[in-house]
């Protein structure tokens, strides 16, 4: 009898001890993990935009968030945009109907830090919305300003690849031409589909204008020698520029043994850009028409 009690007692004690050790580690490492994620995201974002090392003072970045709202049978798109008087912070929540007209606008007084946290952000928005409106977070995107003028966008997206999915972050110019993109997650085969991470593939998309991207296809032919050298930056910068200019209108050359992955990335990026461009234009006309004071 006494045996069983000692067993149970000691077992419980060890469980508690183990739990404390794990719990402490969790608390300590969680903060570090979140911080690292944030730093990594920023690093990827800035390197995509072409800043190596120090970021100039004139360049600032704001984050905007998009939601899908539903009230009864109707649906709306909501944008949480930073207010123009960005020194004090604060956001405006714009509710647009599906045809791109402004339905409502609200003030949401939270700081950028608070907006970065999903739960806090959701709660603050729910607080200003009327009863009976359901909201679902859709995506977030970053707007890059240079001397206060909109100069670039950073969008992320996820689309199906050959294996499971591919997650990317893309930098777009103010006219929606591609500045570059980074593959964040993928499960493609190393050496085959995994080559989508290599510069000679990613750089093919660099600088392609919005019109070119609209009809972008994948061709199953090898990359021309001069183009390959430029893509891998094996030649001096002026030569790279010239060659890239020449091939700007080219379709994407498929990766050897990974045509499906190539097509997946091309179609995925195309879709992302088309949707984003459409939405930005809608937002722009709403903000212009209604003279809303947001940083955009």
């Amino acid at each position: 009898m006494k045996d069983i009690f000692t067993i149970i007692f000691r077992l419980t004690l060890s469980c508690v001890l183990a739990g404390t050790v794990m719990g402490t580690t969790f608390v300590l490492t969680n903060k570090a993990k979140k911080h690292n994620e944030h730093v990594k995201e920023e690093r990827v974002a800035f390197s995509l935009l072409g800043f190596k090392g120090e970021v100039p003072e004139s360049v600032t970045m704001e984050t905007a968030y998009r939601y899908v709202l539903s009230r009864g049978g109707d649906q709306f798109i909501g944008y949480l945009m930073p207010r123009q008087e960005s020194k004090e912070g604060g956001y405006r929540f714009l509710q647009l109907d599906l045809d791109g007209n402004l339905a409502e606008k609200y003030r949401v007084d939270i700081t950028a830090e608070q907006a970065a946290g999903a739960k806090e952000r959701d709660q603050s928005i729910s607080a200003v919305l009327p009863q009976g409106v359901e909201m679902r977070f859709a995506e977030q995107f970053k707007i890059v300003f240079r001397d206060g003028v909109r100069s670039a966008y950073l969008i992320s997206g996820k689309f199906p690849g050959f294996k499971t999915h591919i997650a990317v972050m893309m930098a777009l110019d103010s006219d929606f031409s591609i500045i570059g993109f980074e593959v964040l997650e993928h499960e493609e085969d190393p050496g085959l589909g995994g080559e989508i991470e290599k510069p000679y593939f990613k750089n093919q998309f660099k600088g392609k204008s919005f019109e070119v991207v609209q009809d972008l296809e994948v061709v199953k032919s090898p990359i021309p020698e001069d183009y390959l050298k430029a893509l891998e930056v094996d030649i001096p910068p002026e030569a790279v520029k010239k060659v890239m200019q020449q091939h700007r209108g080219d379709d994407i050359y498929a990766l050897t043994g990974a045509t499906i992955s190539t097509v997946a990335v091309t179609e995925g990026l195309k879709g992302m850009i088309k949707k984003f461009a459409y939405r930005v234009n809608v937002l722009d006309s709403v903000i212009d028409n209604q003279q809303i004071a947001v940083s955009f």
Partner: protein
Amino acid sequence: MMNGKALSRILGAALALLFLPAVLQAAGIISDNSFGDDNEIMVEFSTPVDGEAVQNTDNYTVFEENDPDIRLKLEEVVLAPDNMSASLRFAAPLNTTQTHVVKIEGISGKAEEIFRVSKSYLGYLFSVLIGSLLIKNFVFTKYLGLCVFFGTSKKKTTAKGMGVVFTLVMVATGIMSWFFYQYVLKPYNLTFLQIVVFIGLTSLTVQAIDTILRKVNPVLFNSFGVFLVLVIANCVVIAVPLIMASNEYNFFETFMLSLGAGGGFLLALYLMSSVSERMRLAKIPPTFQGLPIAFIVAGQFAMAFLGFSGLKLF
């Protein structure tokens, strides 16, 4: 066997539940819908419809469920001669991984007919099963469970026994872990305890199956029971709940995952043991005898299974 009947009844009820939405949908004018070619949605009607209204692309609003503000461009609607089905052709290929919402005006008494098109969920579940069975075979593609694998793949009978026991434990552990994860770990923010909890559940399951098998079917126990001990410290069994947690699978997906994992393990063991039995008659150099040659054979199997990569059934 009692357990078998009850199990199949539960499975039948679960499947019926999955089909229910399709049955309910048949009540309206739209009797069926699915994705056709790359840029096509097929619709079937329960009664012949007004040709003009159906073929007028202006009556349609189509968008992906998550992007209601992006309207997809419908190029033409091709109606079948009997006016009972139609094919919606779009300008650009559709992203079939997303659920699409289609609204049609003016083809029935109601102002608008709305229906959703998505890939069959049952198909998706089945693809999870095939995925963990072949494409991501736990032994040959994920390289788990190797210790036990090499130890018990010498004879076909041991292989079969081991495989069956594993599948049983994996399914039981998978389901229990799912409950624990969804209702205890996640709500209380204790996900970091998942390793301890999962291995605890594994040991418990093995103990439980051991005891139950001893009492219910001693004959079965005598043939398979000895393998149970080996199961506890094994990568494969703990891998199932870990994958479930990192992919956030729901109940049915977890069930399919564990079934496929166990089945894949059984398949791998069976294949390996068949080759093992033949190798015993071959002349193997002394340095290669035992584990080295087993590894090389396993490597060849792994190469063969690489062929399943990218298989898409649904």
